Each structure stands twice: as C-alpha cells, then as structure tokens.
C-alpha cells in the first residue's frame, strides 16, 4: 500500500499553472525520486504535501489520513518531514537549538538535559557534531543542507521529503550522501521522497522515479526506464 498518495492535484499561481492533475504514490519503505526540468512544479508539489502552501484542487492522503490543507505543523506531527531547496535555518540559534526545536515539539516533556544529547546524536549523524554550538547563520551552504536533514530526522518522521540536497557536492561527497540516505531507509525504516537534479544519485538509490514536466506527470517508472525514455530526454534536452 502507498504511504503517501496524491490524487489529481492542481495548483495555480496567478497566471502560472504550476501543477495540473498530478497523480502520484510513494510506497512505504521505498525511495522515490521526483525529477523534472526547472520550474516543473516539484517544489510546489512538496509544499502542498507538507502544508506549506494551500492546495488548489485534489487530495493528498498520508498513511490513510487525508492531509489536504492541514497546517504544516500537524502534517509534520503526523510523520512527514521535509527539507527546503533554499535552506531555512534559524540563523540566530545554534545548530543544537535548531535540532532541538524539532525534538521538543514532538516530546514537550523533555527538558534541556534530555534533549541536549538527543539533538547531539542527530547532528553527529550528519557530521555536524563539532559545530553544535555555532550559530546556524555561520554555516556554509553544504553544512546548512546537512542541518536541514538533521532537523528533519529529529522530528522522527515516517516519510522524509528531500528537496535537492546534493546540489553543490562533488562526486565523492555525492557517493557518501547516497549511502547515508539509503542507510536511513535500511536501518530506520524511513520512506524517502526525493527531488534531485543529480540523476546519477537517483539512479543509484531510487526504486521508482516520477518525472514532472510543466506541472504534469510525464512518466513514472524505474530509473533505468526513465532515462531511456524519449520524452524525458526531450524534456531535459529540449530538442
């Protein structure tokens, strides 16, 4: 059964039709890639699922619950965590506190003594342990992306939605990151829904890829099938 399902989602911004009747499904325990050219509507789709944007038409169902139009914090507490394409750290707060925000809203009973070490674990998991007491505004782009992931993980989600987390990494780093994400699925049982332009990474990790183009689903298939598809090539290369 699908953990997350979207039915006939549409969204307009003034004159721009960002999504048109999009149907999609993300199966529990899977890594599902979402690709498509710039402006195809990928981030918009994420925003609607996560409640950051009011939906246009259509429905989103998560774990059997309709979550369409619910406020972002409720969706988060239901078990969906997301990262932002342009990172949004709490600049004036330390990395540790950034992660703590995610923890204390899940477990209000915890005091600093309890959440401190927990937050530290998440930071260490993404390799930011040494920067725990640094204000987030001092991080570089890549560190900020890691912090986003740590914060997302700290909400203890069932579904993790990643929006272009590999941008700016070199080949070596991409390999490590892909390993890390697969690990999340394998050891923590997370489902991952992942927007990425770095096709190589999606090819390696995803079981299924959804391709969006101009707000419509162009095709759905295995990574292999997708990159071989004429329509996809033309959408990307623009013949």
């Amino acid at each position, binding site marked *: 059964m699908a953990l997350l399902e979207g039915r006939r989602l549409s969204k307009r911004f003034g004159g721009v039709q960002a999504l048109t009747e999009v149907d999609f499904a993300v199966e529990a325990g899977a890594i599902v890639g979402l690709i498509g050219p710039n402006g195809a509507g990928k981030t918009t789709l994420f925003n609607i699922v996560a409640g950051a944007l009011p939906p246009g038409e259509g429905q989103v169902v998560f774990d059997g619950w309709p979550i369409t139009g619910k406020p972002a914090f409720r969706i988060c507490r239901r078990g969906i965590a997301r990262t932002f394409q342009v990172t949004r750290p709490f*600049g004036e707060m330390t990395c540790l506190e950034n992660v703590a925000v995610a923890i204390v809203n899940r477990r209000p009973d915890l005091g600093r003594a309890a959440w401190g070490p927990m937050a530290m674990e998440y930071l260490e998991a993404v390799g930011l342990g040494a920067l725990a007491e640094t204000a987030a*505004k*001092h991080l570089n782009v890549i560190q900020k992306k890691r912090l986003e992931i740590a914060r997302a993980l700290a909400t203890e989600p069932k579904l993790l939605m990643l929006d272009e987390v590999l*941008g700016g990494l070199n080949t070596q780093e991409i390999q490590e990151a892909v390993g890390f994400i697969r690990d999340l699925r394998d050891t923590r049982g997370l489902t991952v829904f992942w927007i990425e332009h770095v*096709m190589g990474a999606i090819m390696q990790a995803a079981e299924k890829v959804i391709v969006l183009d101009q707000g419509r689903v162009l095709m759905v298939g295995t990574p292999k099938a997708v990159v071989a598809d004429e329509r996809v090539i033309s959408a990307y290369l623009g013949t």
Partner: protein
Amino acid sequence: MFKIENLDVFRGETQVLWGVGLEVAPGERVAILGSNGAGKSSLMAAITGLLRPRRGNIIFNDRALVGLKPYQITQLGIALVPEGRRVYKGMSVRENLEMGAFVRRGRPRLKESIERVFGLFPILGQRSAQGAGTLSGGEQQMLAIGRALMSLPDLLLIDELSLGLAPRVTKEIYAALASLGSEITVILVEQNVELALRHSERAYIVESGRVTGHGVSTELIDDPDIRRAYLGM
C-alpha cells in the same frame, strides 16, 4: 568588453562563488551552464550589483563595476532578465516596457524601442494595455526580455530563459533573440544544456560556485562528459 576576475561572492555569511573568472567579447553570446544552486543566479546578481562581491573584479567597457549600485550599473548599459521574469504585475504591458526605458540612454528613444519590441514579440503589441499579471508565463518572459531591451543595453543577461515554458514558446523566444543578431552581447544562463549550447557561441560550466570548464558550444554539445553530468547517462 566584459571580464570577470577571481570573484568571491557571499550571501550573508555564506560563500556562494569562489574565484570565478570569465571573459566575453563584443557581440558574443556566452552560455553559463550549471545545475541547481550552482551559483549562476548569484553570478548574475553580482554582475548587476545586487550582491556585492567580497573580492575580485568585474570590468565592463573598461569600467570597474564592483561597488556600484544596481541602478548605476544599469545606466552603464547592462540589462538583466531575472530568473522568474519579475514583471510589474500591477502595471500594463506598455508601462512595463516604459519602465525598462527609464535609464538615461533609453528615454529619448522610447517610442522607437517600443515599436522594436512589438516587432520582436507581436503578441505584446496586441496586449499593450493589458495588466502584466494576466499574461501567460511565456508572454511574461517575452515582456521581461522586451523590458530589458528597452534600456538599449550593450550587454544583456538572461537568467533561466526557458524556466517553466513550453518548448514551443521557448523556441519562439530564442528565435526572436537570434533575430537581434550580434548588435547586443548576451550572457545566457540556462539549465537546458542543449538549448543553451545551441544558442551560444561559447559556454562556461559552473559547479558548486566554481567555474569548472569552458569551451566552444558546438564542441561541448557532443562532449560525452557533459551529457553524462546532466542526464546521468
């Protein structure tokens, strides 16, 4: 005519460009390629003065641009078509174009320029009194380009021309641009690699805020590395 040397750019506390350098000859069309977040838009922002570089030089027609304000740079003859078009939605098409001609060099030839833009994009002529917010995405892109041309720039910067546009519309706009010939120098930012290379003479590749390669477009288009990097094939 245009040269960037060793440019370091920060957004807030975060560095987004490292030692970027490039060079453009008069009348040339140069493409900047790179994946999301590579720093292409930041480069545009630095050239136009929206971001102030920490180090490095930008030279345009023998003038150093670093430290100048955007409005001063525009007055010197550089126009940007920004990512996401950013037309003035509450103003009519004509008023948008007039705003483009705000600069000193543009105003005296306002009427003439408007005619030229309407010639380039006839649909804008038909919609001249319509509010820009009600235009389709493609029309807005045409308007954004038209507005940039209104300032009679020597150098035109276009960020993500094809973003969110149907291929047919994209083609139309590129055709219109091509018809301008070599009277304007163009720097083109584009994620659609093939389109970019096809409509440029040379290209620079930006990755993670660094220039990692450059070459003649017709050669790059067949480069297997490029194809692999951008399609994962």
